Structures are given as C-alpha cells and as structure tokens.
C-alpha cells in the first residue's frame, strides 16, 4: 500500500513539474473533498434535495389539469337540459357541484372552492331549437387563475359541442380536421418535459450556490488569504476548490438521471455519453458563476443572496424549463441569452425526449463554454484585485 502510493507520487512529480505541482493539487483536492464529504449539508443538497425536487416535478408540479371543481346551475327542467347536465357530470376532467341558483355559487368562486360555473338557462330548449340565436349556455370562470380559467372555458364549450354533435338531429358535416400528433412525448405527460429540466435546476444549485458559499466562507474567515500566501498557485487553489464540486455535480446528475429514467419513467432517447458531456460542460459556467459571486461577495450571506437571485431564480424562471421563452417580451428574451441554464435545459429535453441531435447540442455546448470562460476570467480579475 505504502509502496504503491510512494511510486505514484514519484510518477506524478516527474510528470507535472511544468506549470503547477500536481501532487500539491491532489493534496488540495483531497482536503477539499473530505471537507465537502463530511458536511451533512453538502450531501443534503447534492442527493436529498434533487430526489425531492424530481419527485415534486414528477408528481406535484403537474400542468395536466384534472378534476377542476366547477358548479352547474340547471335553470331549465327540459329533457335536453338534463341530458347536457349529465354529460357535464360524466366528464373525468370536471368535478361538478349542482345548484339551483347562481347566487349560491358566487361566494364559492370568491373563496376558491369552485373555479367556475356553467349556467344552463331557463330557455335552453328554445335556444337549442333556434339556430344562429343566442349562445346555448353561460360559462363563468375565476379569472384570478388565468390558466385554469381558460381551461374551464374551453373544456365547457367542448362538452356542449360534443353533446350537441351526439344529440343533434343534423347529420355531422364534413369539415376540416386538424390531426395533432405529438412528437417526442406522445403521451403528453408534462412530467416528461419537466423532469429533465429539473436536472438543470439541481446542477445550478450545486454548481453555483454551493461553490459560492464554500469559497465565500474562506474569504469570510480570512483563510483564503492564508492559502493564497502559501506556495500553491491561484490556479491550483481554485482547481482544488472546484473539482470536488464538479465531481459532486456529475454524481448528482447521474443519480438524478437514474431516478428520472427508472423511477419516473422518462425515456432517455439520446445516449448517456451525450448527457454526461452536456452536464460536464454546463458545470463550467455554473462553477464559474459561483466563483465569481464568492470573490465579489466575500461573505456567505451576500453570496447566498446573490447566488439566489442571479443563479437559482433565473434558472428556474428564465431557462424555458417551466415558462416558454418565446412568449416573453423582447427585453426579457435578451436576458435569457445570458442564463447558462437556458442552453442546458434545451439540450436536456432533447437528449431525454428526442435523441442525440448534434445541431441542437453543438451551439448550446459552445455557448455554455463561452459564458463559463467569461465568468472565470471575471472571477480571476476580481481575485487578483483583492490582493493588492
């Protein structure tokens, strides 16, 4: 054992006397790794939080609407009105509460107990018999939840439409039909596009947040100056600091990808090497940003706040992971180009759901690397300045 270590040490010495001392670097990496490994909060953030996040994105954050609570006011006693009411009660996407009077329901919409209601009016049979007349029903929604409101409106209209097509006397007319076919996600589960994106959030937390804290702590305690005054070069110190977190980030990605594939049933249509290369390249801007934040902030409170508002929240809101970038105003779309997670989210969704598509990966990889390089250069300048 001893002899092996000794021989390895000698080899390393011979190989690396060029720019910096590899043995010193390895010692630094070892020290930082131990420090990271021994802190329970590191493991919490690298393995427990990702598992929780993935679980939530798989089951809690669902864009697939189901069983929206609505009311149904049946003012007409006619047979057709009863049949339409039965059609509403039968749909799996609505949870219908019946009422005689619309005033009963107003308060329930204000309190949030109901998301809308449908009124089948007194003269419903009359309206049905008279084509081109007044609308058959009235739909009221809770506009304070715009997404649910538009779902209730369009779904209720659909129920009436379908019911009329089935019950109406006229033969169905030949019409123009749009046949949608969903590529990459034929089952249309929002989980399949959310879970890969969640990996980008996890990596941002580890790369940017954790690194910013760890390095800021050294500055805060004054140990950074102490380390800088040793023979170790700045590059060695930084590589020593960052490589354990790089490894941690990659391990966490692997664990998250395993969870996504085997537990949450997200397909990996691309290749594992592609996923690993994408993740490794994303770690460059993530770590660079963390380093830059720590060398600007120099204390953990500031570093945490800056990492939260410049790293985590933008990765969450501006990466296209949850909210469509195309739908944002021009000036925000311009900001999203500076968010490294944007490129990673697009690549992750592609590698999981579509496959290895070089024309998607290559520009994203190059941009992530370029942003990372800028972060590192800025961090280097900020570090040097502080020592003067």
């Amino acid at each position: 054992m001893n002899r092996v270590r000794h021989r390895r040490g000698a080899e390393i010495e011979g190989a690396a006397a060029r720019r910096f001392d590899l043995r010193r670097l390895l010692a630094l990496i070892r020290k930082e790794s131990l420090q990271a490994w021994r802190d329970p909060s590191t493991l919490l953030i690298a393995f427990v939080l990702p598992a929780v996040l993935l679980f939530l994105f798989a089951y809690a954050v669902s864009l697939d609407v189901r069983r929206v609570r609505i009311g149904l006011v049946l003012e007409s006693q006619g047979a057709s009105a009863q049949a339409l009411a039965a059609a509403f009660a039968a749909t799996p996407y609505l949870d219908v509460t019946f009422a005689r009077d619309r005033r009963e329901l107003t308060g329930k919409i204000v309190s949030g107990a109901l998301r809308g209601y449908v009124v089948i009016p007194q003269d419903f049979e009359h309206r049905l018999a008279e084509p081109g007349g007044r609308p058959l029903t009235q739909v009221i929604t809770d506009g304070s939840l715009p997404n649910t409101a538009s779902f209730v409106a369009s779904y209720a209209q659909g129920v009436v439409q379908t019911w009329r097509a089935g019950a109406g006397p006229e033969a169905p007319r030949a019409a123009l039909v749009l046949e949608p076919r969903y590529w990459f996600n034929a089952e249309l589960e929002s989980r399949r596009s959310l879970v890969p994106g969640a990996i980008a959030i996890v990596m941002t937390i580890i790369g940017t947040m954790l690194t910013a804290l760890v390095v800021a702590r050294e500055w805060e305690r004054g140990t950074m100056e102490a380390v800088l005054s040793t023979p170790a070069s700045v590059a060695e110190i930084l590589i020593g600091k960052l490589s354990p977190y790089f490894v941690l980030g990659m391990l966490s990605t692997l664990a998250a990808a395993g969870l996504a594939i085997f537990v949450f049933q997200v397909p990996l249509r691309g290749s594992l090497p592609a996923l690993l290369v994408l993740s490794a390249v994303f770690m460059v801007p993530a770590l660079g940003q963390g380093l830059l934040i720590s060398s600007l902030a120099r204390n953990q409170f500031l570093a945490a706040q800056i990492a939260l508002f410049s790293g985590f929240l933008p990765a969450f809101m501006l990466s296209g992971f949850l909210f469509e970038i195309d739908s944002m105003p021009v000036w925000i779309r311009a900001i999203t180009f500076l968010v490294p997670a944007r490129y990673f989210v697009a690549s992750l969704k592609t590698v999981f759901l579509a496959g290895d598509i070089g024309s998607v990966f290559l520009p994203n990889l190059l941009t992530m690397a370029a942003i990372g390089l800028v972060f590192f250069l800025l961090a280097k300048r900020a570090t040097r300045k502080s020592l003067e």
Partner: protein
Amino acid sequence: MAQRAGRLSFARLRAQFTKEVLCTLRDPRSRMVVFMPPLLQLLVFAFAATLEVRNVDVAVHNQDAGRWSHELIRRLEGAGFIAQVRSVGSAGALRDLLDRGKAIAALEIPADFSRGLAAGDGGRVLALIDGRRSNSGQIVAGYLSAIAAEVGAEAGAEAAPETAPAAVRHWFNPNLVYRWFTVPGLTGILALFSALLITALSIARERELGTFDQLLVSPTSTPEIIISKSLPALAIGSLLGLLMIAAAAGLFGIPLTGSFGLLAASLVLFILSVVGIGLMISAVSATQQQAILGAFAVGVPSVLMSGFATPVENMPVLLQWLAQGIPLTHFLVIVEGSFLKAMPPGDIFMNLWPLAVIAAVTLTLATMFVRGRLQ
C-alpha cells in the same frame, strides 16, 4: 413563552433588536442585496412567468396548390400567437425544423386538400407538435385546430350558422392577463426567500463565529434570543413585501380590490411563520453553509407545492394535504384574493388561522431547539 421566562426585559430586547438590524443592514452591500434584487426580480419575472403562448414559429409543408391551403396559410400568418410561418419544400425539412426546436408545430398539407374541401368531403391536415414543450404544444394544437375549423366552416359556407355553445365571462380578470396572477404571487415568494435566508443565518452565524456561546452565558433569556432574532427579519420581510405590493398596484396597475389593511396584517403573519421556519433551521445548523442550504431545501419545495407554478388541486391528494402545512399556500390565496377578488374577511380568516398555527408551532419548536443547546 414570555410568562414562562419571567425575565423578559424590554430594554434588553430593544438593544438587541437595534443590534440585529444594524448587523444585517450596516454593510451598504447587504442593504442593497436585501432590497434591490427582489424588486428587480419582480419586474423581470412578472413578464417572464407566463403560461401563455405567443411569438412561436410554425412550419408548413404545402403540397397543395389550391385555394384553401392558401387561405389556411394566410390565416396562420394573421394569427396573433405566431411570429413566423416558415414554408418548406419537403417533409424532411419539416422534421428538421421540429427537431432543432425552430418550430413548435409543423403542418403537412396533402396534395388533394383543396379538392377534397371543395367537393364537400372535408379535409385533413397533419400537425406535428413538439412534445418537448408539452404544455405550450397542447395550447398551440388548440389554437391551430380553431383556425382549421374556421377555414373548414368557410369552405362549407352554405351550411346554416351554428349557435355558439357558450357565452364565456371571466370574473376578476376579464382578459385573463397572466401578470395579474403572477405579480401578487411573486410578492409572496420573494419576501419568503428574503425572510427565510435572513433568519436561517441569524443563529447559525453567531454559532459559526463562536459568539453564540457568549450570548447564552449573558443574562439574555431564550425567548429574548428568539424574539430579537425574529424581529429584524420580520421587519425587513414585511417591508419588502409591502414595497412589492405597492409596486404591483402602482407600477403594474393590478387592481387591489380587497382590504389593504387585512392584506398587510396577513403579510406580517405570513412572514412571522416563515421566520419561525427559518429559526428552526438556524437552531439545528452548525454553520452558515448548513443554514443556507437547509433554507434552500425547505424553500424550493415550498414554492413548488404552494400552487404558484401549478394549482394545488392538480396534485395527488397526499401532497395536497402536505401543501396545507406550507405558509406560502395560504398566503397565495390571500394575496390573489385581496388583489383581484375583493375577498371578504371571512374567507381571508379561513386562510389566516393556518398561518397563525404554523407560526406558533415553528416558533415554539425553535425556542425548544435553542433551549436544547443549553443543556
């Protein structure tokens, strides 16, 4: 808590409160970081956080030279949600645009499209949708179907006009402006993160620096420590929340239809319950890093389950119950209701008492954790 200690000194409390506020806000950089970024984020995220679909590109491969395919494309070009209709010459090019994410949907119009429509046989258009963007994809498919139905209706114009299935009215937000939902919610989320981070660090910082032991041997009682550590975050968080509520009403022009007083009182209680959680985290953390990461491990899942990103009722029942234990869930109902729905005090109270319970439980637990350190 206070009676039990019997050693609560107002003068001491005031001195400690002053010291804590100074500690947080003395550094000009800290001052800036506490107030500026949340307000900036409010501005940016108000426009970013939308589930609407706008400004997307659609690809078309048209094999038909007839009138109706041109009519369909003309209508697509006029549609508000489409930025550009890209015409391509082959099915392969269509597929490529979709693969690269350059188009969210791709329409394949067959060669006999106009002929079939003109003959009254109806027509079919295949729409390939990018399932990677599953939610937007579904919305786009809905919009495209509506456009196709219009063209179909025009082609068969001789048929009798149909009665509309429903007259729709959206209460509280007639035009369904998404921002009216996001901005009030964001005030809660951003205030939550600020208050959580400030309190989580409070005890942990002293412990890391070693000054916590000094605090423990001083005449200060445990409730005094808890109160003095909560008040600054409570003050800063509430102030931040009020600033953002003012911005929502003034800058974004979102109607504040409910009672401002009740909303402000709810905000303070909400921040207090968050402060309780933050102090619990702080009391069990040995270092600032642990405290910050712990705050994160609690804060992020809270936001996800609160109903901001997607409605609570879409979640499995078990998680819906769990969501009731999250302060943000209740505050979101209050803040959205107060802004848009003129929510009456009764409904607000229904969401206020869970906040009070959470605050009482977490602050008591935090006191116990700190006292546990003494033994």
